[in-house]
């Protein structure tokens, strides 16, 4: 009998198409709010007030962005936010690295409980420590400076940084540490020459997470700063609402500009970001 290639007509499977269409509709719904802000930011206040927000503009109106970008107050907010975010991100990761190394490679009696205490710090509503911290920094005369915000974010970052670094360091084989010790390395060299270079992905995860959270924070600058030239950008958005009461377009532009750093980080480091979110959530 000759071999006959029988071509079976593929049975039509409606599922992939249905799922795809459903996802498209959901994605459109999800994007609508952001799209609205984007549209508002390139339209005149008049056009918005006349109910013309949701149409595609024939002309892109950039005055709103000019208003935001040339506003010295906005410059000040951005600078303050950077001055808080960068040091607090670096410091919290550095402290997490130190603690994570001990919990992963130098466990001791009671270290598990200590680790659990540190990590559970991640879960508590910050309102619980609001009043005592306000009193502490008030007593130190640091209210209305950026210091308390940096310090508090550093401290509040320790749980997640310790958790992620410990998990990463624990995955580095013990034999590597021991080989380094035998070759004459001390614990600090084990950390800096072996464990850390192998944990660059973890550092990337933490850098994106911490930067985003601290950049986006509202509560701590609200509590610790009072004068306008010490405010961060998220407070700035709220403050400028008064100045631009009905200037919807300017508000939209400001929101987008304020979110730009975190958006960029998110789009470029999405992989790390998601990894951090899931690791932080699941291993907790």
């Amino acid at each position, binding site marked *: 009998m000759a071999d006959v290639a029988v071509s079976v007509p593929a049975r039509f499977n409606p599922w992939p198409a249905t799922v795809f269409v459903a996802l498209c509709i959901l*994605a459109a719904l*999800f994007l609508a*709010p952001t799209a609205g802000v984007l549209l508002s930011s390139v339209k005149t206040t008049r056009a918005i007030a006349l109910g013309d927000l949701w149409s595609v503009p024939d002309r892109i109106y950039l005055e709103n962005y000019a208003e935001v970008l040339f506003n010295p107050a906005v410059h000040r907010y951005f600078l303050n936010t950077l001055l808080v975010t960068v040091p607090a991100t670096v410091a919290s990761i550095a402290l997490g690295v130190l603690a994570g190394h001990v919990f992963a490679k130098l466990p*001791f009696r009671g270290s598990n409980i200590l680790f659990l205490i540190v990590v559970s710090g991640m879960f*508590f509503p910050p309102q619980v420590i609001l009043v005592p911290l306000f009193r502490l920094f008030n007593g130190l005369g640091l209210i209305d400076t950026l210091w308390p915000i940096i310090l508090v974010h550093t401290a*509040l970052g320790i749980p997640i940084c310790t958790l992620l670094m410990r998990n990463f360091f624990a995955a580095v084989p013990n034999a590597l540490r021991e080989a380094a010790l035998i070759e004459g390395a001390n614990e600090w060299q084990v950390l800096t020459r072996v464990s850390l270079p192998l944990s660059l992905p973890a550092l990337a995860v933490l850098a994106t997470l911490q930067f985003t959270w601290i950049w986006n924070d*509202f509560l701590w600058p609200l509590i610790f700063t009072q004068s306008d030239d010490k405010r961060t950008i998220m407070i700035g958005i709220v403050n400028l609402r008064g100045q631009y009461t009905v200037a919807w377009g300017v508000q939209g532009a400001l929101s987008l500009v304020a979110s730009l750093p*975190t958006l960029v*980080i998110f789009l470029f480091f999405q992989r790390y970001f998601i990894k951090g979110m899931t690791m932080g959530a699941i291993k907790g």
Partner: protein
Amino acid sequence: METQNRLWRVLLLALPILVFSVLVIWPLLSSFYYSFTNWNGFNRDYEFLGLRNFAKIWTDRLFFNAIVNTTIWMVAALVLPTLTGLFLALLLDRQVRGARIFKTVFYLPICLSAIVVGQIWIWIYQPDWGLLNTFVKLAGNPDFNYAWLARPDSALFAVIVAWSWQQTGLSMVIYLAGLTSIPSEMLEVCEIEGATAWQRIWRVVIPLLTPSTVVVVALSMINSLKGFDILYIMTGGGPFNSSDTLAMHMYNESFKKYLMGYGSAISVVLFLIALTVIGVYFRQLRKVDEIYG
């Protein structure tokens, strides 16, 4: 060896533990202390009130209002993003075309600040030209002009929807991670045993996602206890305290009325609720670990 290890432990842990103790543990403990005082936030001195702040809680109508709102908030903010996130994860788990782009879209709001999210949704709820009312108008009700955020009936739910929009991506990602950890053999068994797609999802996939569900549920509850920024910008707890939650109420009492002692008492209650949630969470996590390990 042990001697050096001991030394390095102390050297490496000293700074992180010091910072954490001074700025997290100590304030946590002194919150309890201040809850027994009438400190006003500015004066050096304060009086010791004993349990009077806690007695006041019992008679504070706004506190009960906040408790009710927090409960509504916690339950709604638990159900909405969890179900949507699960649904999206199930859709995206199959190799849909463009899955990566879809994931990015659904996940995007999580990188926005609560302030910006609030701002965006204020637009949506704007009575005259907001997206929501525009829709209703297009749907055949041209005179519809409902101020969602200005009405006590709808303000809280309006904020919850905005909040869910942001949180959905998180539960989706956790569910997606859970789905990838289901061994493909289990799904192949379903195929061989002749289960329908529906049976497969309800009888196998969702039960196997229990560990993820525990995480998602606990995380949403904890996050909703923390929720403050978005309420602050969207409603400020109003109108008529209709969207006032515990976190909001605590802020108002402490930093608007400068009743920091009383505010601390509220924060102690908040802490105890969080502690309960976390305690249950850790226990469930251990239970789930034993089964699904």
